[in-house]
């Protein structure tokens, strides 16, 4: 039922959302989340490089999606996550959920995001004028898992 895509290529956000939301006469609510590479003024980010663990990535995202489907009344879910090099403004990833009611669609999308942040094997490296550095995981992101 759900779709998971891990890819290097960009994805067409508008087309993905349009396709995901189409023909759903039994689902009243569609929620999407899109993650965008930020260019913070103080760092002057040039490139974001995302490394992942081929094989485990698909497996880990699959488990996270299965868990979401078991917890909420969902009609469908979509996860697209890129790896490789990206620039400011590029879309890193997206999540979409369709449910009969908005509460389920929102909760499932937030759950997917919280788990993708800390439990899917991706690592972000920021390359700026001053050099390169791995993005550190935050306590905030780890703490976000405890609410589920």
């Amino acid at each position, binding site marked *: 039922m759900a779709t998971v895509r891990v890819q290097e290529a960009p994805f067409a956000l508008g087309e993905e959302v349009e396709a995901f939301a189409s023909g759903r006469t039994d689902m009243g609510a569609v929620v999407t989340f899109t993650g965008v590479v930020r260019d913070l003024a103080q760092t002057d980010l040039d490139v974001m490089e995302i490394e992942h663990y081929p094989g*485990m990535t698909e497996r880990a995202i699959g488990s996270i999606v299965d868990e979401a489907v078991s917890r909420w009344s969902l009609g469908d879910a979509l996860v697209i996550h890129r790896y490789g090099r990206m620039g400011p403004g590029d879309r890193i990833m997206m999540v979409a959920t369709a449910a009969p009611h908005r509460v389920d669609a929102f909760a499932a999308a937030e759950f997917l995001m919280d788990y993708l942040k800390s439990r899917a094997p991706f690592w972000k490296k920021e390359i700026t004028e001053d050099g390169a550095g791995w993005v550190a995981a935050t306590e905030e992101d780890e703490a976000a898992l405890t609410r589920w």
Partner: protein
Amino acid sequence: MTLDVLYFAWLRERIGLSQERIETDALTVADLVEELRAREDRYALAFSDLSAVRVAVDQDLTEFDAPLANAREVAFFPPMTGG
């Protein structure tokens, strides 16, 4: 036992390898880490603070006391930063 050991992100950079095949009698992930640490400084350095390292055995996230019986692939990496 033959294990494929994978390293990601700064662990890969510090060790200078993304993957290696190892012959080992390690019973747990922790035993394997001790073996690696004893090899060379770059391993000792990469594994100096295990609170900053996560481990997956056969592509499932696990703990350092996890047994390695029947394992084929062990991966070490920092906390994940997806999304």
